[in-house]
């Protein structure tokens, strides 16, 4: 696979949940210190901007490092992330064909971890938002809508991918 993706995953033997826990362990104290200094609203806005930018750039770099059509780039990244995150979730595939992929996640250990920390917004930024950045690798050939997530408190995450006709 690509160097940029390998760099991101760092250690393929380490679960994505553990990797995320390590990052949360270092980010949460920094976030708390920033909130104390800047106020919650300002600190959270800064964190949001920062982590969204980081994730967008990261997945754009990964997409660039993969050859092929946008659809192929998306499929390649999705395959790797699907594999590493599927260990941590329970899901149901409702539809999977040429035009659409509908998945409901019914249990998510990432959400359980961040909700237990009382930092679901950080979890949304670190984890959930990446799905849209990965979909962006599909450059219009793939689109994602997701009305709700477990991280935000819903009972399920409703992933609805649509694929443009080939």
């Amino acid at each position: 696979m690509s160097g940029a993706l390998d760099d991101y995953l760092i250690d393929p033997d380490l679960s994505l949940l553990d990797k995320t826990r390590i990052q949360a362990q270092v980010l949460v104290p920094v976030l708390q210190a920033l909130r104390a200094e800047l106020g919650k609203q300002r600190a959270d806005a800064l964190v949001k901007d920062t982590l969204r930018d980081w994730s967008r750039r990261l997945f754009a770099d990964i997409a660039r490092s993969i050859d092929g059509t946008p659809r192929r780039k998306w499929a390649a990244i999705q395959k790797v992330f699907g594999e590493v995150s599927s260990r941590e979730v329970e899901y149901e595939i409702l539809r999977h064909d040429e035009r659409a992929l509908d998945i409901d996640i019914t249990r998510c250990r990432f959400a359980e971890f961040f909700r237990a920390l009382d930092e679901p917004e950080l979890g949304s930024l670190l984890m959930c938002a990446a799905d849209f950045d990965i979909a962006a690798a599909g450059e219009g050939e793939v689109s994602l809508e997701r009305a709700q997530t477990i991280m935000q408190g819903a009972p399920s995450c409703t992933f609805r991918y649509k694929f443009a006709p080939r």
Partner: protein
Amino acid sequence: MTDEIAIPHLQKRKIEARALIPFIMACREKFGDGPTGEVIAAAIDASAAEEGARWAERFGGDIAGLRTLAETVWGAGGLDLEVVDESADRLAFNVTRCRYAEFFKALGLQDLGRLIHCNRDRAMVTGFAGDIELSRSQTIMQGAACCDFRFRRKA
């Protein structure tokens, strides 16, 4: 949030850095190097001191424990080090190769490496043992040929 995940220390630091680097860069861009940088540095110091306390429980909070820590946790894949002097009251070693520095240098971010990696060591020692101090006149991260770690028990 004190549970340890059993992976090499180098990997752990790299994973942390992937999240911290963009964060600190954005803060610098927005607020300059001033108070916000100090807030972040203080938060990192606090977590380094906690880590030092956990390591002291695991290895013993004395000079012998420090050597075990340096050789088994830091050294495992991350550092090449040569012990030049050791007694009950002091431990001196030189790091001759540092893959942490190589990681930050490859990204062109040695100054951040100093902030979020090297600077942790002093805070870590305060958590590890109240009566041991670290002096270090140079580091590979800053471009020196070796890092000269000199730990000694305070008089």
